[in-house]
C-alpha cells in the first residue's frame, strides 16, 4: 500500500502540475480540497481522468469525487478496492 501511495502522490503532482510540491509534502490524511493542498473543482476533474487512465476506474458522477478525494488515504483505499488495471 505504501508503494502505491507514493506512486499515487507522484501521479497527482504530475497531472496537476504541482511544481513546487514533493510526495513528502503531502500528508496522507490531510484534506486535498479546500484547505490542505487547496485543490479545486477542475483539479477534481483531472483526478477523475487520472483514475480512469491509470487505474481503469470510470466515475460518471463528478459529485462522487468529493468523497473519494477526501485525502490520499481515502483515495488510495478506493483505488485499491475498485481498480481494474
Amino acid at each position, binding site marked *: 500500500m505504501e508503494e502505491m501511495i507514493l506512486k499515487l502522490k507522484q501521479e497527482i503532482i504530475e497531472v*496537476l*502540475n*504541482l*511544481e*513546487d510540491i514533493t510526495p513528502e509534502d503531502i500528508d496522507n490524511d490531510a484534506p486535498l480540497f479546500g484547505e490542505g493542498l*487547496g485543490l479545486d473543482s*477542475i483539479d477534481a*476533474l*483531472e483526478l477523475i*481522468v487520472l483514475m*480512469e*487512465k491509470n487505474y481503469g476506474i470510470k466515475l460518471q458522477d463528478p459529485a462522487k469525487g468529493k468523497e473519494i478525494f477526501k485525502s490520499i488515504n481515502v483515495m488510495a483505499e478506493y483505488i485499491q478496492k475498485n481498480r481494474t488495471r
Partner: protein
Amino acid sequence: MLQESRVNVLSVKQISIQKPLTEEWMTNPEIHTENFVRAIDPDFRQFISAGDARRLGKLLKRALATSLSALHEGGITNPDAIITGTGFGSVESTELFLEAMIRDGEQMLKPTWFMQSTHNTASSLIAIHTQSYGYNSTYTQKGLSFECALYDAWLQFGLGRISSALVGGHDEMTPEFAGFMRKAGHLLEGEICSEAAVSALLSTREQEGTKALCTVAGVEVLDSPDAETLDHAVRSMIAGNIPDAVLTGMSGNATNDGYYHFLKKTLPEVPLLRYKHLFGVNFSSSAIAFYAAANCLGKGFIPPVLTLTGESVSCSKGILLINAVEGRHYSVILLKPLCGKL
C-alpha cells in the same frame, strides 16, 4: 469622433523574442536568424505563485505577467475594462487537446487543456486575478485582433463609459502551428515566425506619481478599402499635422509591403519605420508596434534599429502606425506625445 478627455497610454509591457519587460532592444537587440523563434520568458514567479501557475500555459502566463506589470507601473489596480486580442488563442492547449482526442479515441481528455483553449481565457484570467468586474471582451480577428480590441476601448472611452482600460494582444506558437502558418500563407519566406504578449494600460485620468508615455489620437480599422478610402483615412487621422515617422509592418512580404511604399506618396519626406525584423511575425505583431511606438514617444526619440536609414529620428510630433494584413485589412493608429496637462 471627439474625445472629451484625452486617452493616455500610461504603460505598455511586452514579452516577445526580444528581452522581456524591458526596452533594451532599442539599443542592444537580440538578433535572430532561425525562421521560428519562441519568446524569451521572464521568471514568472515574480508575478504568479506556483499554485496559480500550475494551470496556465505560456500564453496565459505571459498575458498575466505583462498585465500585472503594466497595471503596477500605471498605478491602477482594477481597470474599468479588460479587452484582449488574440489571433489563434492558446495554441499549445488546443494542440494537446486535439492530438489527445484523435489519438485516444475521444476518451479520458484533460479538462485543463480545453479550458485554456477558449480564446477569452486571458481576459478572464486577468479579471479573476485582479478581481475586476468591469467591461470584459476578446477579439479574434487574425493579425488585426489587437487593433479591434483597441478600437472597442476607444469606443468605450468615447461614450464616456470608462476612464481606464487594459488592452492586450497575445499570441503564441508551437512548431506544428508555425508550419501551419506557412502552409496557409500567413507567413512568407524570410519572415520569422514568433510570439508576442503585449499589455497596454490606457486612462483618461491623470495618475499621481506616473507619467504617461503618450496619447492615443485616433484609431481606425478598415476592411478592403480602396486606395482613395485608405488615403482619406490617413489624411483625416493626421489632420494636417505631419507626424515624425510612420511605423509600418514591412517585412519583405510583397502583398503588404506594397502599400507601405505607396505611403511615400501620401506622406513624402516622412521616414518609414519597421519592427518585424526585430520582433518577428505573428497575429499580435501590431500590438508590438503599439508598444514600440508608445515607448519611443515616451523617451522622445526613435532608435536607429527601427529606422530604414539606420539613423535616429527625433520624436516630438507623433508616430502614425499602419498595419496591413493579407493586403486586405488595414489599421491606422496615431500616437502623439503628451503636451502639458490634460
